């Protein structure tokens, strides 16, 4: 009895001391605490079921008295002529109409909302609560601050990236050294060439590298993205695609496909399998794609009636100009609070939950699997080390060939069909690379001139 009293008194004292200490600075809480844990949250998300399945149910387990309402993202944009209307007006109107408390934004939208000044800065509350920002993978907080002009307007719990999977058995049986992290495209293609035996009559073929897709122009795009090339001159008005350096990349692409180093459309049609299947079925030694493939690989390992494969992962190819940065990593669900939100405390609790160890732990088992930005909690990804997943810095400021802000992004949609059809014509042997580059240069310049008018 006496012991219990002493304890009660000492707890009381502690509380008083803490209160006093707080009082010394005369600090008022930045966000008032929830009353009896009660609150409301209006969240913007694609799909209500998915939201609760991935996050909502778990948050409500901890905060059973916070009511959550999901507003579907489809209200966020009106799509006209295949272009999303992301004007400042639209953003403001959306916030006014839906009064959300939490937004899930990709990098581009996050940027858009910030331009309109519609988001609440988290710096003050994080400072007061001494919120721990350590343990995020390199580049995440920097990128977010970068977009926010130095301030942090959101936190991103997950990111997506590409990795290079490899089939260890195929490498060994072909006596080829295993791939490494941070290879450049020429290095990867050289490695792939060691396997190149295109399918032809009587031969099933063997390839070095396949993708989630099989179009030649997308391979070209990936290689270009990780190069030092620019599309135009510094003024952004003169296209310079018919140059020796662009030609070199085009030759590299075409050679890789012709020699069977890379698995593309022709191979896919001949073997009637996808790029992923080519990898699963030992027809391709490497696969460059997203993280969910690891699920499938693991599933195949478990299933007794499927062939087991020793597989590994290394980073996707890098840009030699920025060897520590990823060319594929993106933040897709940046959680932010609108400046007008009336439930900022509940929203902040939710954002902390989204970025917590507890949620991160089961993120790889969401569908699709999600990779936490808090790398300290993730040692394994489907039974493999997560090291290659976190080895490259996430960056939001380099857009590589699109780095030059003077080049309109729409140029991409003008060049893509020309490139797609042109490369196909080259591969079918009807067209020379010079012809194609010439055509791209002329028609691309015409399109660019129109855009610049």
């Amino acid at each position, binding site marked *: 009895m006496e012991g219990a009293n002493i304890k009660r008194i000492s707890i009381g004292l502690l509380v008083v001391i803490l209160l006093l200490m707080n009082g010394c600075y005369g600090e008022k809480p930045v966000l008032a605490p929830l009353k009896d844990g009660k609150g409301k949250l209006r969240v913007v998300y694609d799909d209500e079921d998915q939201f609760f399945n991935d996050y909502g149910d778990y948050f409500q387990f901890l905060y059973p008295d916070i009511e959550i309402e999901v507003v579907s993202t489809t209200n966020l944009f009106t799509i006209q002529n295949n272009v999303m209307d992301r004007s400042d007006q639209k953003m403001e109107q959306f916030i006014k109409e839906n009064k959300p408390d939490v937004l899930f934004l990709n990098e581009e939208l996050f940027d858009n909302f910030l331009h309109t000044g519609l988001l609440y800065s988290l710096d003050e509350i994080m400072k007061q609560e001494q919120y721990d920002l350590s343990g995020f993978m390199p580049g995440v907080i920097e990128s977010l601050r970068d977009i926010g002009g130095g301030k942090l307007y959101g936190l991103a719990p997950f990111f997506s990236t590409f990795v290079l999977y490899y089939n260890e058995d195929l490498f060994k049986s072909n006596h080829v050294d295993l791939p490494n992290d941070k290879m450049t495209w020429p290095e990867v293609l050289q490695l792939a060439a060691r396997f190149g035996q295109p399918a032809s009559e009587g031969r099933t073929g063997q390839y070095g590298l396949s993708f989630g897709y099989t179009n030649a122009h997308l391979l070209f795009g990936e290689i270009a993205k990780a190069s030092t090339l620019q599309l135009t001159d510094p003024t952004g008005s003169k296209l310079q695609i018919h140059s020796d350096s662009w030609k070199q990349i085009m030759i590299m692409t075409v050679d890789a496909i012709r020699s069977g180093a890379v698995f593309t459309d022709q191979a896919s049609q001949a073997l009637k399998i996808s790029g992923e299947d080519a990898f699963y079925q030992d027809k391709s030694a490497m696969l460059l794609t997203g993280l969910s493939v690891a699920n499938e690989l693991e599933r195949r390992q478990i*299933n007794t009636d499927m062939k087991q494969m020793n597989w590994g992962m290394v980073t996707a190819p890098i840009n030699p100009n920025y060897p520590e940065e990823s060319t594929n990593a993106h933040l897709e669900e940046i959680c932010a609070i609108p400046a007008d939100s009336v439930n900022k405390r509940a929203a902040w609790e939710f954002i902390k939950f989204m970025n917590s160890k507890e949620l991160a732990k089961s993120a790889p088992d969401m569908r699709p699997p999600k990779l936490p930005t808090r790398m300290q909690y993730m040692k394994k990804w489907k039974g493999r080390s997560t090291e290659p997943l976190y080895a490259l810095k996430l960056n939001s400021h380099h857009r590589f060939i699109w780095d030059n802000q003077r080049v309109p992004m729409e140029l991409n949609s003008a060049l893509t069909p020309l490139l797609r059809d042109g490369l196909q014509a080259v591969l079918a042997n009807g067209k020379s690379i010079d012809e194609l580059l010439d055509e791209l240069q002329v028609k691309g310049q015409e399109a660019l001139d129109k855009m610049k008018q």
Partner: protein
Amino acid sequence: MSMSKVLTRAIVSMLVLAMMMAGCSSEKPLLKDLDEEKEVTLRILTNMDRMSFRNFYGGLFGIQYSNIDIELIPFDERYSSNLDSIVALEANISRVRPDVVFLSPDAYERLAVEHKLYNLETIIRQEQFDVDTFLPGLIDWIRKKSGGALYGLAPSFMGKVLFYNADLFHQYGVELPHDGMTWDDVLKLAARFRNEGSSNDEVSGLYVWDIEAAIFDISMNLGLKLVDSKGERMLIQSESWKRVFGQTVEAIQNRDIRPQFSIANNGVIKEERSDLFLAGRAAMKLDWNMSVFSLQRGNIQGGNNYAFDWGVVTAPIDPFRPGETPYIQIPNIMAIPIEAEHKREAWEFIKFSNGPEKVERGLRYFPFEMMTRGLSKKTKDYNKLETFYKLRMSQDRDSRPYPVNVPDSFTEPFDKLLNQVLTRMIRKDVTVEQGINELDIKGNELLKQARASQNGGGQH
């Protein structure tokens, strides 16, 4: 932190003292208390895929126990018979040494009998874990399987209830079904929906998946088995089986029962385009809880919205055992292997997964399985879904017409034969009696062949 530790210790020692003073035997805690600061990796062997595991168990557990990591060891049990898969599972357990295993009821029975599982009775008593508010009959059923003591807990079940289309009942002026009807009652009710519609908009009383399903639905309710427990002999030559066949065949001839799959006069398999009940063209169906999901979602099929006012009553009962039901399946029993390294953490996982907090504060909806612990008051259609918990789970009758040791090499050809014979009975090519004779003779032959090939097939 250290303050709270001191406190916890003080409270624990006081509790221990109190227990000793109360004379409740100077029992030592069976498992060491959970050290919440310690990081532990719990190894769980399961046949669930990662995503379902996260949604049903792992996700919430990770939030409640932030220092326990779960390493999922998936186990796929695709074997030619149930028995083979249990043998493979046992080998897997000794190889990967999991802390928690998800077991089929058959595997649970065998592992418990072989003393390979950790007995939970003492820890349940010491911690006063509530085992009285599970699905009625469940705990007794698990105990019975393992010879009296509890070696595992089952968090989820699948159950069948009788769904009805209230709109159709009103339209035909038939009184609504009620809980605790017998199969005779249900078939009588189904007969009230006979009508002269064209085959496209014709309404029937009771929809079933296929003819065999109708036979088994009725026979399991009476505890009838097709094959004896040793898997050696057909048991189909009985008055009860004759009655079940007779009743079902007649109801199908009268179109009171409409199967999704049937064989037309020319021998071609005919398939209805959709679940006739969900399409609003059958008054009732006996079906699993999954159907609730379709009904709640506005019942959209092939682009059409068939929403109607629906209700549920308990599955038909055996008039001699009115309070119980065999229409319950337990997919998994969670247990701790006797050699598990982290028994305390394993018990915490099982306790949490089977605990009442999870129901009250947990996931909003289980589409495929229901929780044995009951329903959250917040559940949509709470009043309807309560029906799943009304009858006590049968202790000795289940939904399986064959014993565990009958191989697939018997069941597959026999099911085909059954379908053919039933079709002939319905077409009146043979009498019920002749049909049963044929099933008996050919079934016994198939059994003999299957057993011979199994014995000659070498060991696994």
